[in-house]
């Protein structure tokens, strides 16, 4: 047997928009009649129905009314893989999970699944408000596919995870929504199927609890079980998944590593080179111009090292120079330049604005027509070893505002600030890792060998 636990072969799902199927009893009988006669009712019904009086046959199942929520999705998932599924709303993610969990049937194509499937498309499915927490644990657990013995075995764990011990014998209708969600997730988290299908259920509860859920998901993944995980949270996907599928309008557009897929989803059409030229800038420019004519144009954006060489890969201990070349087409009485550094999950983590620097701020209070080059240096030892993006904005307040989101990409190589120390790993997932001063104070009671007592401050 192969190592594939899920094989999807051209899975497709079609929904009919507007009218649903055969509307009247008459249609129903005509349809049945064609079926009994061994003809394809779809071909014949047009003739019987609408198209009867005209020359052309109008197909009952008009293509325009068909909506393919999924079209020809094929993939193979290995045992123990944790795979993210991402895509915009309506791209078919949930439909795919519904097909795999057998909630509905595909229109065409097929899939083979090996192993017990647990699906978690909603938290608290089957909770009955009148039943107590204890009773609902059993109710919900069996609905999700566990049997009573399995729940008995994990009951204490579930209760501990949910943090609702005190209210175990209270009907859940008296629970706060937070308690309800915690209990529901606790049950779901203790499902032990071989394959787990999860749909965006982590977006519930408070931040603390979300963290706990993510941790639990990581455990599940660590136990060698296969997980398919739909989420809009790219951080979670990158964190949990080794691989991700990107769906777009019902089609599978990318099946690659989590990193590559989330990058593509977030629209990182980064300029490949280390420099953004005027052409790149014009293509990527977002923003608004309120005046009648343009005031400012960005000409070139680059990241430079100490020697003014453009670069994409920086060592953590070298300064990074952000260089912005622009042209003022008119004189501008107040020019603001700002840049910020964005991490992989789209979170801005670092930034600066020209007017912050009081030594130079006055120079920007009147900029005559002309071509300029502004620069700002990010000091060495600022970032951790990760991938970052540079976003730039240039504005003449209330008149012109140009935004360039994630125009350049760069990578920082972190070697550790202390070269004598063997680091456990320099790829700690921390964006900002400056070189800071530490101190230590204490009292020594006993020296290493336990020979004599000292009272020395070190």
């Amino acid at each position, binding site marked *: 047997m192969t190592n594939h636990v899920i094989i999807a072969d051209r899975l497709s799902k079609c929904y009919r928009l507007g009218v649903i199927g055969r509307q009247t009893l008459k249609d129903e009988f005509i349809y049945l009649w064609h079926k009994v006669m061994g003809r394809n009712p779809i071909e014949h019904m047009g003739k019987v129905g609408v198209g009867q009086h005209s020359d052309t046959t109008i197909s009952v199942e008009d293509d325009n009314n068909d909506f393919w929520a999924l079209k020809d999705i094929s993939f193979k998932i290995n045992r123990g893989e944790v795979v993210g599924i991402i895509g915009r709303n309506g791209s078919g993610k949930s439909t795919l999970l519904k*097909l795999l969990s057998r*909630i509905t*049937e595909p229109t065409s194509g097929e899939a*083979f699944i090996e192993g017990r*499937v647990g699906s978690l498309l909603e938290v608290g499915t089957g909770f009955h408000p*009148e039943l107590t927490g204890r009773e609902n644990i059993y109710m919900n657990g069996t*609905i999700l596919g566990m049997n009573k013995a399995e729940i008995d075995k994990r009951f204490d764990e579930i209760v501990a995870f949910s943090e609702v011990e005190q209210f175990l014998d209270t009907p859940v209708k008296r629970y706060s929504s937070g308690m309800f969600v915690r209990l529901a997730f606790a049950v779901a988290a203790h499902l032990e199927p071989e394959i787990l299908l999860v749909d965006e259920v982590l977006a519930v509860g408070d931040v603390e609890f979300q963290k706990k859920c993510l941790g639990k998901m990581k455990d599940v993944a660590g136990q060698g079980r296969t997980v398919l995980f739909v989420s809009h949270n790219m951080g979670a996907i990158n964190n949990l998944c080794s691989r991700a599928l990107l769906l777009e309008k019902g089609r599978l557009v990318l099946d690659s590593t989590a990193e590559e897929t989330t990058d593509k989803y977030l629209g990182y059409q980064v300029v490949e080179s280390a420099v953004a030229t005027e052409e790149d800038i014009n293509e990527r420019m977002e923003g608004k111009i309120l005046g009648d004519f343009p005031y400012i144009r960005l000409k070139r954006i680059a990241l430079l090292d100490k020697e003014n060489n453009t670069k994409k890969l920086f060592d953590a201990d070298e300064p990074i120079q952000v260089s912005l070349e622009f042209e003022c087409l008119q004189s501008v009485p107040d020019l603001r330049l700002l840049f910020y550094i964005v991490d992989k999950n789209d979170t801005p983590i670092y930034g600066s604005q020209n007017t912050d620097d009081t030594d130079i701020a006055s120079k920007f209070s009147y900029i005559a027509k002309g071509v300029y080059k502004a620069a700002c240096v990010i000091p060495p030892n600022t970032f951790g070893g990760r991938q970052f993006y540079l976003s730039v904005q240039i504005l003449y307040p209330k008149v012109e505002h140009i935004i360039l989101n994630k125009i350049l990409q760069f990578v920082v190589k972190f070697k550790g600030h202390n070269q004598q120390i063997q680091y456990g790993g320099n790829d700690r997932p921390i964006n900002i890792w400056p070189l800071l001063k530490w101190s230590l104070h204490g009292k020594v009671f006993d020296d290493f060998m336990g020979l004599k007592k000292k009272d020395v401050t070190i």
Partner: protein
Amino acid sequence: MIRTHIKPNQSWFSVDWKEIWQYRDLLWLMVWRNITTIHKQTILGPLWFVIQPLATTVVFTIVFGQIAKISTDGIPPFVFYMSGMVLWNYFAGCLNGASGSLVGSAGLFQKVYFPRLIVPISSLFSQMMYFLINLTVFVTFYLYYLFIVKTSIQPTLWILALPALVLQAAIVGMGVGLWLSALTVKYRDISFLLPFLTQLWMYATPIIYPASSVPEKLRSLYYLNPMASVVEFNRFAFFGVGTLTKETFLFGIVSGVLILITGLLMFNRAQRTFVDII
């Protein structure tokens, strides 16, 4: 290792009984939930199970026995009505439970997969509980009339066949319920039709009148209703009077089984994709 093959247009006939067996714990929990949650936050609680059949019988005795003076074949009216109601109520309960099973649990079925037949099957078992209470009430009054009032009622050994009658009522109720449940998915009209249908069906069944009052010429037509033979058999077993023949009863069994099988097919066909059109 469980292997699942997901493909379009699964056969109508493929009911996976093994899978239903694997979910038996869920089945029992659903039965238990149906029973325990229905009377939560009521004062009388389970007492309602006794009050309902008693009150109905009192009303029937007054309206049909005293005012309309419909014959009861010499059987004391109180137990006459009760003997009909006891099986009829079970049947109506099964019918109701099964017919609401797809649309009523749509929220659940849209979010999780388990064998959908579990829901109608669970209602068969939870209705059984009402039936047993109904039956106890009936038997109490029956014994009272038999030994204390000393009327002319003649118990027969056929009383032992009662479990088979219950099964027959369950089969018919479930069969029709599955049909309606499948149809309700597409045509919501059915849910309006159901109370009306149940009422009409009750009048077509010898509950408030004896089958002997149906003209003899029409009787074979009358017994096309499989519930008529169930109720009539039950009355014959307890009171020793009735018009049932072997043929009509056998016919009732055959039609009941046919209804159940076709109902299963319809349900199975509807449940495959019903979440798409609900």
